[in-house]
Structure formats: structure tokens, C-alpha cells
């Protein structure tokens, strides 16, 4: 393939991945999924009932992998058995995946607060009605973008894996990226804005999540609004970088042009990793200088 076409397709995939990453993180914020949800689940048990949509269908990677695999399978069937156009097939696949995800969200929402009846946690039906369509909307965007990436890889870049499997793998990867990056902004910052900025969550404060919003009582929308300023976009950048960089090394240094070029792609990838190690070190040094130690050295004191 022409390297320029390859780079163009890769840029498109990177852009789709960036949107997918952001929507994946915001979906997990508005619906409260993954690790930070442990605090939402714990809050009523510590006598802090709340109005936050409490769903944790599973860890984010399996739940996104399910969504994307369902969408990918539907899209493949529509394209191969019914000769539908790829755009229509991908849109229909994403729609069905969003409906499946919505179903899981509703059952998870009913299951969790009702199990906390003894802690006087109400089941707010208005929260269910208002939040579920938003959750489905975000999951639609995520699945659509992942299917676009997978379709481009199969149809244009000629990747050998079948489309549903690629969608499954990218679903696992986007969930892993989302729960590793953007969720920390939701869990460590947004849920505990009442404690001083610049510290991890003291174990003594576990379950004491902020329940008052900028206006009225806080719900999933408020969390999504806040995380859309930082957590969501950085998750998008992270997943965009994963898709773009992992494809970039083999597009620029195409192994089809010989093993020597293939080894160059390996070296280019290793160099990228080395740059990131050094970058992490620079941030670490800057953070230690900016925030300073939390306690004094007893020997020196």
C-alpha cells in the first residue's frame, strides 16, 4: 500500500480512537463504573445515601469488549450476509450494542441500590430515566468509533484478524486505558472534592463521597460534566496514542518491504517507549519539586 494512504487511514483511526476514548471515559463517569464505583457502592454503608447512578456491570474492559464484539458481529453479518453498506452495518451494530449495554445498565442499577435497602439507600427512578439514555448514547459513540477502527484495519490496511475479534481486542484495550487514566480523575478527585487538593484518599475518608452538586444534589451528569474537562479528553488522547503509535511503527517501517525494515519498526517502537520513560521521569521530578514532601525526614529533623 502507498505509505501516504496508510498514514491517512492511520490518522483517521487515531481520530476515531480519540473520540472513542473520551466517550468511553464519560460513559463510565455518568454511569459510575469500574474502580471508583467501589466508593459509590460503599457510601450508603457508611450512612451516606446518594443520588449517583450506581452501575458496575463488570470491569470496564470486559463490558466494553462485550459491547464492541456484539456490534462487530452484527456489522459483519449485515455486511457479508446481506451486502449492506459498511456505514449502515456499523451504525446498526453500534445501535444494537448500545441497546444491550442499556439493558445491562438498567439491571445493574436496580440490583445495586436495592441490595442496599438496609442502609436506607433509595432507588431513584428519575435518575434511571434520565441517565440510561445518556449511558446508551456514550456507548453508541464508543462502539461506533471502535467499529470504524476495526473496519479500516480489516478493509483498508488488510489486517488478517476478523472484524469482531479486532473489535473485541480494541474493546478490552479501550476499557483498560479508560479505567487506568480517566477514571482516576473521577475516583481520586471528583468523588472527594471535599478534602484538600493534592493528596491521595486517606483510608479514613473511604465512602465519604461528595453528595452535593454545583446546584442541588450531585448526580452522574454532574460527574460527567466535571470529568469532561480533563479525565475524558486525556483518556481520548491515551487511546488515540495507543491506536496511532502501535500502527504508526508498522506503517512507516512496513515489514512487507523486508525483514530489515521490520526490525526498524521494532527499533522505532522501542525508541518511543524510551522517550515515554524519560518523559515520565521528568514529570516525576517536577511533581516532587512542586508539591514537596508530605512529612519531614525524622533523621534530618
Amino acid at each position, binding site marked *: 500500500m502507498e505509505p501516504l494512504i496508510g498514514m491517512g487511514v492511520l490518522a483517521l483511526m487515531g481520530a476515531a480512537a480519540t473520540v472513542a476514548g473520551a466517550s468511553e471515559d464519560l460513559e463510565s463517569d455518568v454511569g459510575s463504573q*469500574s474502580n471508583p464505583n467501589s466508593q459509590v457502592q460503599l457510601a450508603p454503608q457508611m450512612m451516606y445515601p446518594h443520588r449517583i447512578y450506581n452501575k458496575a456491570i463488570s470491569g470496564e474492559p470486559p463490558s466494553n469488549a462485550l459491547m464492541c464484539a456484539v456490534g462487530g458481529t452484527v456489522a459483519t453479518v449485515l455486511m457479508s450476509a446481506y451486502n449492506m453498506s459498511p456505514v449502515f452495518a456499523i451504525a446498526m451494530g453500534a445501535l444494537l450494542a448500545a441497546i444491550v449495554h442499556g439493558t445491562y445498565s438498567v439491571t445493574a442499577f436496580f440490583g445495586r441500590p436495592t441490595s442496599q435497602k438496609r442502609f436506607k439507600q433509595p432507588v431513584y427512578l428519575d435518575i434511571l430515566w434520565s441517565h440510561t439514555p445518556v449511558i446508551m448514547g456514550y456507548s453508541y459513540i464508543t462502539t461506533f468509533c471502535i467499529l470504524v477502527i476495526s473496519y479500516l484495519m480489516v478493509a483498508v490496511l488488510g489486517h488478517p484478524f476478523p472484524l469482531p475479534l479486532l473489535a473485541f481486542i480494541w474493546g478490552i484495550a479501550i476499557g483498560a486505558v479508560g479505567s*487506568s487514566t480517566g*477514571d*482516576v480523575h473521577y475516583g481520586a478527585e471528583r468523588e472527594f472534592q471535599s478534602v484538600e487538593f493534592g493528596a491521595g484518599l486517606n483510608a479514613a475518608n473511604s465512602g465519604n463521597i461528595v453528595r452535593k452538586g454545583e446546584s442541588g444534589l450531585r448526580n452522574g451528569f454532574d460527574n460527567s460534566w466535571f470529568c469532561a474537562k480533563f479525565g475524558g479528553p486525556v483518556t481520548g488522547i491515551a487511546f488515540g496514542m495507543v491506536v496511532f503509535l502501535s500502527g504508526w511503527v508498522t506503517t512507516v517501517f512496513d*515489514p512487507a518491504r523486508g525483514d530489515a525494515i521490520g526490525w526498524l519498526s521494532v527499533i522505532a517502537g*522501542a525508541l518511543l517507549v524510551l522517550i515515554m520513560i524519560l518523559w515520565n521521569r521528568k514529570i516525576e521530578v517536577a511533581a516532587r519539586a512542586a508539591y514537596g514532601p508530605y512529612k519531614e525526614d525524622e533523621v534530618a529533623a
Partner: protein
Amino acid sequence: MIDIAGILMENISYVLLITLGGMLISFSVHFVPVGGAPAAMAQATGIGTGTVQLAAGAGLTGLVTAGTVMQVSDNPPLIIAAGAVGAMIMISVTMIVGTWVYVYGVGVPPASAKVKYDPITKDRQDLYVSQGTEGHGLPTVSYVSGVIGGLLGGGGGALVYYSLMSAGMDTGMAMANLVGLASIFAVGIFFVNAVIPSYNIGGTIEGFHDPKFKKWPKAVFSSLIATFMCALVAVLTIGGL
């Protein structure tokens, strides 16, 4: 009738390579610095997600890269290296963006609670751990450990995929079917070996400097048995079709 003994004898070297790949994956998971739910609240050092999830996310990204390379090359070291690099890129990007969130979003410096000094940078750690937490963020030692985890996990996954594809090459199966079957088995074997070490890790591990890391032989031995069984089934299925 399927000639089970014949297929196994013919592909015994691939069975052993798949087993080796599984053991590499199992070993690699111990390097990945994960803090689970506590890390998502900046309450423990490492990445704020589960062991299996991150290891699988990185390893499977490596598998995608290995699949790309294997389509155009039959050089095993290159395929394995491509898988390793794909996984290293995924985990490095995830960790660097994780560092952005910890430093700029939460306002905590990376700090380990398991060691007093970072074994690589020799920086003091305990003074930078905020009150009531078990460390937070990704100090250099954890970052480097994660990259090594990606290297071994991606390489192991690619080795499994390469062996499965090679075992099915002479069966006359259509290429698309072979790739589908081999990749699904590779993903399955990856998950089996990503789960086994989580019993050692128990939710959180900071990297190779963590005392829990020393337990790795138990997991790798368990993976040897589990992957050997998986390899027998996989090779029989692919070779017998």
C-alpha cells in the same frame, strides 16, 4: 477418525512453544504495576485498574501488531519482537497518561510505599506518600517494571499466536479460518495466563521491587501445567481440522 497421537507428535515443538509463551505471559503479569480500586482513588501505587485487565489490554494490543507482521513475514524473532513492541507502546502510553492524571488532575507526586528509595533513581519515597495511603502514581521503578511486563507479555502472546498459526499451516485450512481460530485460541490462552498470577498479586503490586514479586515461580509453574493442557487442545483442534 482423527489421528490424535500423530497430530501431537507432529506438532510437539509447537505445543512446547505455546507452553513457553504462556509461562512468559504469566511471568510478565508480575511486572505490571497495578493498584486496583485503591489506585483509582490515589490510595495505592500503580495503575488504577485490575491486573488481568491491564495485562490483557497490553498483550492483546501486541497480538494485533504481531498479526500485522506475521501476515507479511515468516521470521519468528521479528513477529515476537513486534508483539512485544506493540504491548510496550500500549502500556507506556497508558502509564504516561496515568501520570498526567495523578500529577495534574489529582495533585500527587508519584511515590512508592513498598521501598524507601527508588531502586533506579535512588529518590526518597516514603516522605512523598500522602497520609493514609499506600503510595500513589507511578515512580520510575514501577514505570520501567510495567514496560518490562509489556515486553514479556506481548512477546509471549505473539509466540503463542505464531506457534498456533504454524501448527495449522499444513492442514490446508482456509487462511481466514486459520487466522480466526489461532487468534481466538491465542486470546484465550492469554487470559488463562493473565488470571493465574492474580492469585499471587491479590489486587495490588508495584512492580519487580514489590515483595509479592518473589512469589512468581508458583504462578509460572501453575501456568506451565495450565498452558500445556490448553496447548494440547488448541493444537489438536487446529491440526485436526
